[in-house]
């Protein structure tokens, strides 16, 4: 069922791109001066994506070519309606290709900064990563923050959302409100991605608020919260086990003239609190888990040397905290990363990344990331 849905989504996406691209190209010859009135035939369609490929060397000296990964995103706008869908392809551990829908939603631009959305949203509620920063042509390291994909919700969820951005004096308040099907939960207490069919009658309610204290700065501090009254399947012992999730994120990318370039400072803390339950094999344990990361990058973009100004130096600390008594097949772990990225242009990079974890050893990556 899930594969059929995925295949259908992929076919629809491809058909839209194939059918609408020629229309869009011919319409590109004429210009539309206003988007406020509906003009039949004036549609806008764009196909973009990203690609990642490279090699890695583990601490044991084993070198391998890593499986490539690609995402294709179809963007389609008709006046105030906007549709976007992304499919991602990569090779699973078995070596077989894996294709899945990353997100797919229809959006209506209400105006005055408000937007109504419906469909599948990626990676709610955990702040900025992986929703915003994960594409290989954006993130300067090959390694992702430890644990950021480990807590089950990063595959996205299905529902409706209202988002908006307004001014409060010279500050900007950005907000999201959403209702989705909510996560599932395994019998070992680990929350897992939502399924195609909602596993119970309880929905997840989520909000995100962020503030940019000064409208002309790109400093943004966000808080995210989501709650569901029950995550387990209907009829199971965990049907009414509540889950509360919090995420706090920080993002700042100032130009620092004294450093002849710009700095990117990012951080995020995810907290997951699962209610009381007697889990299979382990019984009860306090099911609170967390992940965090802090990343600092610097690029001397104003250097006189054309090679140096395309270099980005980055470092990251990340951690996943697994509850005591949990049987999740992984321990708590900390990861340290150092990276050097060369930006050929705004959309193409070559990354050198040394990554060290407490429990999984170290690895060295050389990867190329491209926005296509």
């Amino acid at each position, binding site marked *: 069922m899930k594969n059929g849905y995925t295949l259908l989504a992929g076919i629809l996406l491809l058909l839209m791109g194939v059918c609408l691209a020629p229309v869009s190209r011919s319409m590109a010859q004429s210009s539309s001066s206003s988007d406020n009135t509906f003009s039949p035939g004036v549609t*806008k369609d*764009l196909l973009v994506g990203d690609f990642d490929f490279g090699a890695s060397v583990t601490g044991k000296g084993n070198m391998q070519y890593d499986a490539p990964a690609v995402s294709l995103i179809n963007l389609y706008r008709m006046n105030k309606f906007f549709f976007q869908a992304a499919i991602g392809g990569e090779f699973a551990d078995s070596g077989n290709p894996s294709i899945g829908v990353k997100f797919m939603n229809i959006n209506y631009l209400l105006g005055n900064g408000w937007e109504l959305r419906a469909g599948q949203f990626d990676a709610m509620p955990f702040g900025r990563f992986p929703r915003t920063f994960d594409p290989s042509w954006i993130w300067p390291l090959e390694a992702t923050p430890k644990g950021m994909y480990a807590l089950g919700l990063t595959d996205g969820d299905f529902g409706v959302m209202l988002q908006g951005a307004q001014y409060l004096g010279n500050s900007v308040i950005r907000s999201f409100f959403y209702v989705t099907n909510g996560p599932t939960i395994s019998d070992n207490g680990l929350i897992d991605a939502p399924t195609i069919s909602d596993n119970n009658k309880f929905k997840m309610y989520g909000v995100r608020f962020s503030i940019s204290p000064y409208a002309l700065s790109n400093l943004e501090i966000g808080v995210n919260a989501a709650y569901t009254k029950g995550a387990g399947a209907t009829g199971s012992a965990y049907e009414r086990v509540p889950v509360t999730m919090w995420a706090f994120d920080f993002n700042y990318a100032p130009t620092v003239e004294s450093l002849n370039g710009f700095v990117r400072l990012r951080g995020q803390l995810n907290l997951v609190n699962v209610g009381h339950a007697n889990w299979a094999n382990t019984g009860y344990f306090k099911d609170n888990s967390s992940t965090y990361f802090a990343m600092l990058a610097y690029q001397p973009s104003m250097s006189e040397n054309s090679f140096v100004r395309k270099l980005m130096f980055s470092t990251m600390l990340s951690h996943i905290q697994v509850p005591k008594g949990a049987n999740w097949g992984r321990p708590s772990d900390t990861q340290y990363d150092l990276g050097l990225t060369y930006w050929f242009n705004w959309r193409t990079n070559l990354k050198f990344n040394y990554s060290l974890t407490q429990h999984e050893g170290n690895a060295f990556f050389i990867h190329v990331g491209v926005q296509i």
Partner: protein
Amino acid sequence: MKSRGNEMKSMLKKFISRLHGIRLFLVTSGIGLAIAVSACTTTSPVVKNVSGAQLWAMKCQTCHNAPPPNQFSPQQWDVIIAHMKTYANLTQPEQDKIVAFLKQR
């Protein structure tokens, strides 16, 4: 009489404890919604005096390298700005000024 009073107290306690789980969410989102709606200001004096080029450099660079204006056609920029709205949650003036600058090429 006493037992009835105790029964009602117990029911009230149960009712409140059921709300506990979503209470924090409701309070948080209610405050947030109140702020967002009461702010209800679609522009800011600071942003009024800033050019689209400055906003493009500032806002786009927050997450990624900013693509230059000649990278896409005006029609494609209309699509991209809608995509960026969903991710960056841009204000209306930010959207309008940035896309106007990018479409000038």
